[in-house]
């Protein structure tokens, strides 16, 4: 097999490079990708929902301004998680609150279930909407044709590259590309319906 898994680091590389050249659109896509995970990390320090979101916003602003110093020694999400952690701690110190006795390891923060942390931030209506969203996605994936479901799960759950998926499914890479997109497109139609219906929670 060639290619192996496609890490976030590799997937982010082009966007990070564009963002370092000042492309706000590229950075915006990175923020959209990582905003939940960053918020989840911050949530471990800052319990208040509004404060946590303010700190998350501040973290991303700091990250953008410091992008020139990011040299790719670590993954982008590791770097931004570190900024978020430091920003959260500084926030607590600035507000004269005790910093947590037990710190969190960046690697642990990356692996932990961010959904669990974020659910504490949700209003009851948001919690119900989240539950519904999860059920919709699960049903949508289960309803996919076998080849689309297999390709999509190998990519999203196992993180395999197109090359590896093509080898497993014994089909060309172009076919893998197409199947993954069609699977995403189908699931996305269901997700869009839920989120459009719950637009007030997304703002």
């Amino acid at each position, binding site marked *: 097999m060639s290619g192996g898994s*496609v890490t976030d680091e590799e*997937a*982010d*590389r*082009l*966007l990070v490079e*564009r*963002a370092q050249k*000042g492309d*706000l659109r*590229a*950075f*915006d*896509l990175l*923020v*959209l*990708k990582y*905003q*939940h*995970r960053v*918020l989840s990390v911050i949530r471990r320090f800052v319990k208040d*929902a509004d404060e946590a*979101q303010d700190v*998350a*916003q501040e973290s*991303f*602003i700091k990250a*953008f*301004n410091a*992008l*020139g*110093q990011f040299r790719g020694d670590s993954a982008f999400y590791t770097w931004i998680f570190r900024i978020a952690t430091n920003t959260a701690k500084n926030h607590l110190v600035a507000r004269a609150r005790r910093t947590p006795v037990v710190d969190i390891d960046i690697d642990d923060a990356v692996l932990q*279930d*961010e*959904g669990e942390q*974020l*659910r504490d931030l*949700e209003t009851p209506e*948001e919690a119900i*909407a*989240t539950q519904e*969203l*999860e059920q919709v*996605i699960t049903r949508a*994936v289960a309803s996919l044709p076998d080849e689309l479901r297999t390709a999509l*799960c190998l990519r*999203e*759950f196992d993180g395999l590259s*197109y090359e590896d998926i093509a080898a497993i499914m014994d089909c060309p890479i172009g076919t893998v*590309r197409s199947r*993954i*997109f069609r699977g*995403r*497109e189908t699931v996305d139609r269901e*997700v*869009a319906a839920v*989120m459009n219906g719950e637009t007030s*929670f*997304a*703002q």
Partner: protein
Amino acid sequence: MTNRQDAMKNAEYEVLLSRLMDGDLDEFSTQRLLKQIEVQPSLRTTWQRYHISRQAISGSGVSFAGLSIADRVREELEQHGSVPVRRGFWLQQIRPFAVAASVACFGVLVGIQWQQQTVQPVTSVAASAVPTVRSMPVMPIDAAGLQAIPASFGQSQVLRSPAPVPIEGLYQELARQRLELYSGHHAAAGALHTPATLMTGTLAKAEAEAVKR
């Protein structure tokens, strides 16, 4: 027809979004996609939903909380117009060398200054015309070394030493006197250097005899 073309174009860019998620997009296509997102904001929302779906499928969990963070960040960056530059990167790289070079230059300048001061020729001037911090008479030197002139007071003439030499020229004067003494001694000894004496090692003996004469 136009709607169908729009739909096809939209699907084309959604395919690019999907490939970008998986790191399967080249730089040119990425730039094309980013340009399109500017004029088609729905692509941005699609990107967000794709990642929500990914989180759900991978078991990371999803949430509606925090969905507005990206909007706030974008708004703030657009307002302030920040552009990340590699500020100070090269400055940080050359700073250690710049410091070392500065210290070296400083050392060279100090050395040049010191050297210029020490090689200044000592001129004989009247003691009263030469401002000195301290001045002291230079003792005449004989073959045995320094010999002090005894001081005398009262009616007898006081033997004055030569005009005081500024302290800065003291060592130069001392070195000059030493050199004269050495040259004279060497010249006398050189006259005794014959092939025979050098070969037989009788030079020292010959020098001693010359002194006695």
